[in-house]
Each structure stands twice: as structure tokens, then as C-alpha cells.
């Protein structure tokens, strides 16, 4: 589904190039639950941003299915971005001025989903995450775990095939983190491809594949088997 070939990303400084990513070759198949691990600065987030089409400033080839991302027109890339990807952030990044309901609704608005359809999608999501009672609250009125659930609901509202999560549990305590990872697992079972970056080894156990990164390179790539 996704194929990266010889991806380099670097910053041009006065005397030398500082590589953030160097020679990344990576294939991710549909239905995988991939965990990127590694110390700070290893390039996890950068790789995630490139995968999510948020960063276009790199060299190398990015194939999505049969499409070469680098050669796509902006419009198509933007459409692909809208239809295929969902994002979850460490700091939740909900829009403070919007209620829970409206936050989940936003990506649907950008996808021009009809009003009735939006209502039913959001109702399902709220129901699924047990947040019906909280739908009219603002993010500041929720706990971190609840905010992240809204973040997930928002990310999957548009039914993306690929979910990208950057340290999704980084700001949560262990109980809440556990809960979030279980949600991920369920989504994975339903067929969503998930790519997450994390510091926490225990989170990797929920996935099917673990990629260890170090200094902008892939250090190890192993399959996780579940007993």
C-alpha cells in the first residue's frame, strides 16, 4: 500500500548537511499496525509527517498504491490526503473554540458530507466512545484521556484507511493510555492501517510490526506475534 524508496531529509546548515532521515526504504501493507520507536530525534515524527503527506520537503520516492506521490498534482494529493489519512496528536490538538461535537464534525465539513450523514456518523462515534453526554462540552472541560478519545473520534470520522498517531499516549497516565491502545486495536481489527510513533515499548505490543529507528535510519524491523 505504501512504499518509500531512499527517503532522505536534511537541513542545510552552513558547513554541512544534517540528516534527519537517511536512506529510508519501507513498505507498509494494508491492515498492518506499525509502531515506530526510538529515542528523541531519531526521526519518528518526521517520518510520520512524510507518510501523512504533511511534509513534502524531502528527496526519494513515495508510492501510494500505484501513485507516485512526488509526481501527483497538488489537487490530487490534497484529495488523497483528505480521503485516506487520519491524524492523532500527542497534545490532542482539539480546536478550543469548538465543542466535542463540532470538533468531530469539522473534518466531515471539509469533506462536504451532508448534514444528515454527519449527524449519524457523529452519533455513532459518540456512542462508541461513550461521550454522548459530553458532546456539548468544550475541550478544556475534559480530562486528557477524554480529549484524546475525541481526537481519535475526529481522526476516524472521515473513515480514513490509514491512521497516523504521533505519541498518542504521551500526555496520558497509564490507565488512560491502556484504554486508547485498546481502541487502536479494535480499529485495527476493523481493517484500519495504523502507524504510530511512541516511546513506550508496551504500546508496541498492541501492534503487528515494530520498527526501531536510530539517527534517521531504520535500525530494526520485526514482526510482533500475538500469543
Amino acid at each position, binding site marked *: 500500500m505504501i512504499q518509500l524508496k531512499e527517503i532522505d531529509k536534511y537541513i542545510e546548515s552552513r558547513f554541512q548537511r544534517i540528516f534527519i532521515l537517511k536512506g529510508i526504504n519501507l513498505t507498509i501493507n494494508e491492515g498492518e499496525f506499525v509502531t515506530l520507536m526510538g529515542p528523541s530525534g531519531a526521526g519518528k515524527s518526521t517520518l510520520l509527517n512524510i507518510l*501523512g503527506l*504533511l*511534509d513534502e520537503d524531502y528527496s526519494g520516492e513515495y508510492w501510494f498504491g500505484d501513485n507516485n506521490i512526488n509526481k501527483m498534482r497538488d489537487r490530487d494529493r*490534497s484529495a488523497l490526503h483528505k480521503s485516506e489519512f487520519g491524524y492523532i496528536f500527542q497534545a490532542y490538538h482539539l*480546536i478550543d*473554540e*469548538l465543542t466535542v461535537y463540532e470538533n468531530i464534525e469539522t473534518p466531515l465539513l*471539509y469533506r*462536504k458530507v451532508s448534514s444528515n450523514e454527519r449527524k449519524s456518523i457523529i452519533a455513532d462515534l459518540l456512542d462508541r466512545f461513550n461521550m454522548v453526554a459530553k458532546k456539548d462540552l468544550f475541550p478544556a472541560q475534559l480530562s486528557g484521556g477524554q480529549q484524546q478519545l475525541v481526537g481519535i473520534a475526529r481522526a476516524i470520522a472521515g473513515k480514513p484507511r490509514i491512521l497516523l498517531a504521533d505519541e498518542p499516549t504521551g500526555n496520558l497516565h497509564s490507565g488512560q493510555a491502556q484504554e486508547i491502545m485498546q481502541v487502536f486495536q479494535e480499529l485495527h481489527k476493523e481493517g484500519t492501517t495504523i502507524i504510530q510513533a511512541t516511546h513506550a515499548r508496551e504500546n508496541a505490543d498492541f501492534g503487528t510490526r515494530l520498527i526501531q529507528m536510530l539517527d534517521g535510519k531504520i535500525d530494526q524491523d520485526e514482526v510482533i506475534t500475538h500469543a
Partner: protein
Amino acid sequence: MWKNYLKVSFRNLQKRKLYTGINLLGLTIAVVSFLAICLYIHHEWSYDTMYSDYNRIYKMNQEFKSDGESQLLSTTPSSLVPTILEEIPEAEIGTLIFDVSIFSTVMVDAGEGNQEESAFAYVDENFYRVFDFKMVSGNPLQAFSEPNQVVLTKSTAERYFGNANAAQGQALKIDNQDYVISGVMEDFPSNSHIDFDFLASFKTRRHGKNPEWSPSNYYTYVKVKPGTDPAVFEGKLKQIVDKYLGKELAEYGYETAFFLQPVTKIHLGDQALDSIKPGTDIRYLYIFGIVALLLIAIGVINYVNLATAEATERNKEVGLRKTMGADRIQLFGQFVSESMLLTFASTLLSMLVLYLISPKFSSISGVPLRLDLLVTPLGITLILAFVVLIGVLAGLYPSLILSGMEPIKALANKTKMGGGAWVRKTLVVFQFFFSIGLLISTMVVKNQLDYMQEINLGYDKEHLVSLSYHYNMGDGIETIKNEMLRSGAATSISRAADMPVYIKAGYKISPGGDNQREFMITGYSVDTDLIKTIDLDLIAGNNFSETDPKRSELEELDDRNLVILNETAVKEMGWTVEEAVGKTINIGFNSNSEVKGVVKDFYFNSLHHQVGPLVIFNDPDQANVLLVKLPVGNPATHLATLENVWQNLVPERPFNPVFVDQAYSHMYNSEQQAGLIFGVFSGIAIFIACMGLFGLVSYVALRRTREISIRKVLGATQQNVVAVLAADFLKLLLVAAILATGFGIWFSKSWLQDFANRTTQSIWPFVISIAVVFLLALITIAYRSWKVYSLNPAKTLKSE
């Protein structure tokens, strides 16, 4: 989608109160000024469009030529209308208005004593066929078909009879003649150039019964048949002149031509042609229009500046929306809808403000603020278009900046204000350029107005009162004069043709003898006390004495007459002041006028013009006013005494004193109005601009909180901190000040050019304007930086 945009916009605006407040206030003030000016301009522009077929109605004026000098007259002879109706087939209908109030006031008595009326005209029977004003009662087509009929306006009828409906058919005594009220009409609309309280049938007058080709005292109008080319019509008017007037005029070396002026062009047209109502100089309308647009620009600039400065704060939101799939267009829509929401809110608010200030506005500008025009379908459409336009204008640039951010950088808060900085700076410069420029203009206008108040006019206008009287009071006026002097409430009294403020009568003069050079001179008919009363400076010869011949008593063309000239007249003759005394000259038809004295020049005309030649006649019978010099002390008590004397002697005439210095100021009404308007708008512009500066400094201060805190820890005083923040902005202000100075020099040159007598160009308007604006800006900056300075560094630094 739009619902969502609006919701987010609304919450965003609600959340950032300072930002919203500044923008709302700035835009509202700008929109109020803009709409008020628009309504004013609309009113001036809509003059005389209320008659049916107004585009076929023309006023007939004449151009009178003698010796190559041409003079435009807005009046024509009484024979003109009947003649053209008879002889020019293209003339559908025509009418005549005789404004008697330019000659004297009229006494009206409805059974409760005389009241003096000054808005009184005679019109012919076709008046309402040309100008179809609405009637309250009476048949408009027969209102003036008989002599001694009179129509009152509704409010005049109410004044006299308490109720407009009670007036119809009542009798009135007007100047002791009996009249019947043949109709009551609605008051003249404020945007009609015709405005009277009374219209009486012209058939009452001698020339109404028997029209003649002289004098030219009548405003005349013609409604031409559809499809008539005015040029062709004017050609036929020329034939009429040739047929009836040409020969007679040619004998005297005169020439005249009638020309058409569209009725809609009277108000804003050539100001040299006077009209029933004073017109408006169209240049002022253009200036006001530009000022209105610039004020809106300042308000919009505030928004643009604040919104871009504030863009950094909204990075995160933009980044998020982008990762959630928002197109640039969609984001753009969101931010533009925000600015439109704000514009809409301030437009609503300004309607409210306009409603509240409309009485005040009407009394200052003399123009009713027609708010009802704003709620017509067209008005609403225009306002909505305006909201969209201004909303887009204001939102365009900030939206471009915001929607163009790269999502990752935006999320990481890494974007800088850098990109938009020069745009913001340019806009700030523009705002202050405009503010300082307006202030300089205001001060230039004010300087000239002060100059005109303080200039030595050559006569003393202080404590001088003018009392108008009727020529038929005859010798009684001498009794009044003597009684007033005896009462002690007057130190000196002179009979004169008019106030010395604005003397009009024109005569021809030539030095006589072999010298045939002729020129026009202004004549002033007075009695022997004028020089003493208004304190003229007699520099050669003598004043008139009681035994001198009076001009109106002369019988033959070569009877000896005595005159006093002013210096300019003497100079025009080519004599020195000493030579002039005793010389004999030709004035008008008199060929034996001896120069008895010469007075120093005094300003007897608007300061727009240089002092022209003047001849003073000993001719009290041609006088219309008493000029009364009050003794020192409270003028009110003296006036009360004078009124007493007046009431005892002529109880049927009202006592209407006019202070000459007020009449003098009145002459510069339009300049004073312009000065006032400039003043108000420069105040508004400075206020809005300073508010914008306040907002901008707030954001800069916020962004530099950490820097300021570090400086404070290192021992910076408050002044140091203000200096740091102020430096950037003062540079911009300096650029604005330099540009504004350039503009100011240009403005004062071109505005003052209209005045033959003008104040010297001074540096003070510039210095003061720039200093005032700098000071206000500095206070704004200082206030803001003080707030940041007073934060506890321990707290601000910890948050980093």
C-alpha cells in the same frame, strides 16, 4: 459549512475581547463617518430631482456684456417667459419666480399684528405646472390665476393658524394689501433649490400684469418638449434677444444672451450664479467623498494589521484544520467570514449610532440625515454589498497569510510575523500619513479663518448693529435716528445701503475730460455719519456735509454731485490721493461728480477678492439699513433701549438687529463648515489610527514579553522599555510625518489660492499637527509597555 464558519468566527471574536473591541470600535466609527458622508453627498446630489420631467426643466440665466466685461446673471426680465411660450414651439411651459426678499422683507398680518417674513416670493400661474409640489389643500393649477392670491407652506400655515387645514380661504394682510389664501402646500423638500414660506401670485405685481424687458429681476424656468436639444433652444433664445432687445442694448454698447441651465445643475453648478438657496461647491463634495473612503481605509487597515499580527496566535488552529483536510479556499472562507461578521456587526452598530446622532448632524450640516434611505431595498442591497466588499478587503490579506501557513510549522508554532511585517508597516505609515495630513489641513483652514476674523478690515465691525427698515418709512427714519442717539444707547448712527460687509451695487466710472477710460466701480449710498460710525480713515479731502447735494435729488445729468472714493479707485484713475480731491469725474449718467474726499481702502467684499474701487455717495434716500454703533457696555441692554425707541415710533415694524461682525463671519460659512468637518474627521482619523496602534503595540509587547522581562531583570527602567518598543513605531511615524508635510504644503498652497487676502504660510500647523500625533502615539505605546513592564518577570520567564 457557513454556519460552522460563523460559529467559530463568533466564538473567536468573543474570546479575544481587546482585539474584537478595537476592530469593532474602529470599524464602527469609520462606517458611521462613511455613511453620514454618503448620505450628505447623496442629498446634495439629489437636488431638484423630485419634479416630474425634471430633466426637461431648465433655468434661464443671462450673460450680460459691456465693454468686453461679461457678467453672469441668474435673473432675467419678466417678458422672457410669456415671449418664449408664444414664439418658441419647443417651450412646453415656463414659469417665473420673483424673490422679493432680496430687496426687502415683507409684513404679514393674519389679524394678530405684523410679522416680518423674509422667505416670500411671487410666482406666475404656471408655477405648479413646472414644479409639481404636493398640495395640502387648494387647486395648484388655479392657486395663482388671480391677483392677491397667496399659498402658504404647511409649517407656515401652522405657524399662523395653528392648523394647516384651517388656512385655506382665509384672508391675510401682506404689506397692508389684502390677500386670500388659495392653497397650502407641503413644505419644500430640503433638496429643492426653491425654498419659501409664501408664494403669492405674480399678477399682483405691475410686471405680472404687464411684462417688460427691464428690469432683470426674475428667476425664470422653462420646461422644453421631449427631445428638444438645449443648444437649439438657446439658438432660438438668441433670436428673441435680437428681435426685442438687441437694438436698444447696442445703443449703450451692451450685449446680452440667455442660456439654459438644467434645473438639476443649479445646486452644484457654477457658484458665480446665485440662486434662491446658496449652492454647494462641488469640489467640497469630492473632498468629502475622498475623506470618507480614506476613513474606511483606516478602519480596514486596523483590521488587517491586527489580524496579521494576531495570525501567530492562530497558527495552531490553522495547522489542525489543514491536517484535517481543509483546503486553502475553505480556510480562506473561514477567515473572510470572520471579517465579514465583524463588518456586519459594526455596520449594524453604526446604523444605531447614526440614528442617535442624526439630529445633531442635521443641525451642523444643515442637511437632514435620511436614514430611511438606508432601509429601502436599494439601500439594503448597497449596504450588504458594502459589508461584503469591506469584509473581503479587510479579510483578504490576513486570510492569505493564515491559510498559506505550512501545517507542520504552524502546529509547532514556528512561523514568524516576519513575512507580513513590511505590509503592516506600510499600512501604519498610510494611516498616520492620512491622520497628520488631515490635521495639517484643518489647521491651515483654521489659520485662514482666524486671519479673516482678525484682519484689519479698515472699518470697525465691533459693537456695530444693522437695523433694516423699509424705504417707505421716509423721513420717519431721521426721527428714529435722532431718538436713538438721544437715548444714549448709540454713539453714532448712519443710514447706509447695506452693511459694509458685502456691498454689491455696480456703476460705471470714468475720469472725465479727455480720458475716456471706463471701469466698473462699486457704489455705496450713505449719509454724512458713515465715516464716523464705522470708523473709516479719511486720508484726503473732507467728509460730506449736511448741505451737500444728495444724489437722488439731482435732476439734470450735469448737476453737481459729490463723492468720496477709496484709494484703489484713485489709483485706477491714475491719480495720487492728493491730486484726486477736487477732480470731476463721470459716474453712471452723471457727468459732474466732484471728488470730495478719499478714504483708506477697507474690505467691502469677501476676502476671496482683492479690495476693488469704491465710490461713496451722499444718498441717504437709497439707504436700507441703519448702522448703529453701540457704546461700551452690555450690548443687550443697549439693544433693549433701542428696541424701546423703535417700538414707540414704528410699532408696526419688527425690530430685527443684526450684528455686523456676525454677518461678516456668516459670509465664510462654507469655509467654516469645511474647517469644522476637517476638524471632526481628523479627530476621528487620529482616534482610529491610535486605536490600531494600541492593538499593534499590544501584540508586539506580548510577543516581546520575555525580552522585556529579561531586560527588566537586567535593570532596565520603564523608560528604557518604552524606548525599545517605541523606536520601531516612531520610525514609521516619522516617515508618515514627512509624507504628510509634503501633502500639507500642497494643500495649503492650493486651498489658500482661493483667497486674494490670505495668511502667510506658517510652519506652525505642521509642527503642531506632527507633535500632537506623535504625542498621542507615544502615550499609546507607553501605556501598553507599562502594562508589560509591570508584569512579574519571575512569572513571565518561567512560562518559557
